[in-house]
């Protein structure tokens, strides 16, 4: 139960922190829109109008993937830059000794 609480409190905290970053939000929105636009034009050029929602949903999931990759790639680095990494590491070291 405590583990779940830590998990969900952490999730809530990070979602709040990320939504305060305009840079992160713009990155999450701009690139998928660009990819979606290119995909729309490609599908239209191929005269597959019935598939536009198909590609729209694919581009939408790409948006989730893009922000996930950006976030997970920087997860450790961000903690290091914010000075939290060493505390976590120290805490784990104490517990294992």
């Amino acid at each position: 139960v405590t583990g779940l609480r830590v998990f969900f409190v952490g999730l809530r905290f990070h979602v709040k922190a990320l939504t305060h970053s305009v840079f992160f939000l713009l990155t999450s929105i701009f690139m998928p829109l660009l990819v979606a636009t290119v995909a729309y034009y490609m599908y239209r050029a191929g005269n597959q109008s019935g598939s536009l929602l198909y590609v729209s949903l694919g581009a939408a999931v790409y948006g989730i993937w893009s922000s996930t990759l950006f976030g997970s790639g920087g997860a450790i680095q961000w903690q290091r830059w914010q000075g939290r990494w060493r505390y976590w590491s120290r805490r784990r070291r104490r517990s294992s000794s």
Partner: protein
Amino acid sequence: VATLAGTLEVLVSAPTPFVLVIAPLSLATSVIGIYSLVSTLVWGRLAFGIPFHVAHWLAFVVAVPATILGLGLLGFAFASTFVLYRSANALSNMLEWPVLLVTGMLVPLSLLPGWAGPIAWLLAPTWGVQAIREAALGGTPWPDIGVTIGLGLVYLAIGAVCLRHFETAARRHATLSLT
């Protein structure tokens, strides 16, 4: 207060598993992906007039968080390997487009070469996007939702093992603060 109460030692020696620290962060970035999901669908509607009709609303409402969970835990599995190397996050840039292509987000899997199939099956985005599409366009999304969540749990297990292993390795080589 903790010292007086005798709980300080307990608090210090009760470690928070590192997986519970990194996994929410990775999952949170996926949750932010909802912004891009909504904006992409709105953009398609406003700029290209794409109607947004959902065949199975319940499945759609379940498929979106399931996909977010699957993708977030895949991100966690990647993040766990980044403990070991400082520049490993550059890998995340490299992985973006291959996964985009091989999971059929934009290009149908049937158009890809045969060898791409088994790779796609191991990736949660493949099943997640399939679940969302089948929920929206009509089909049987529930098996895809199940596979997405199942793969997410596998990624969680892999990520937890990697995180523990790489953290220990980084400490053993005294490179934790250098990585």
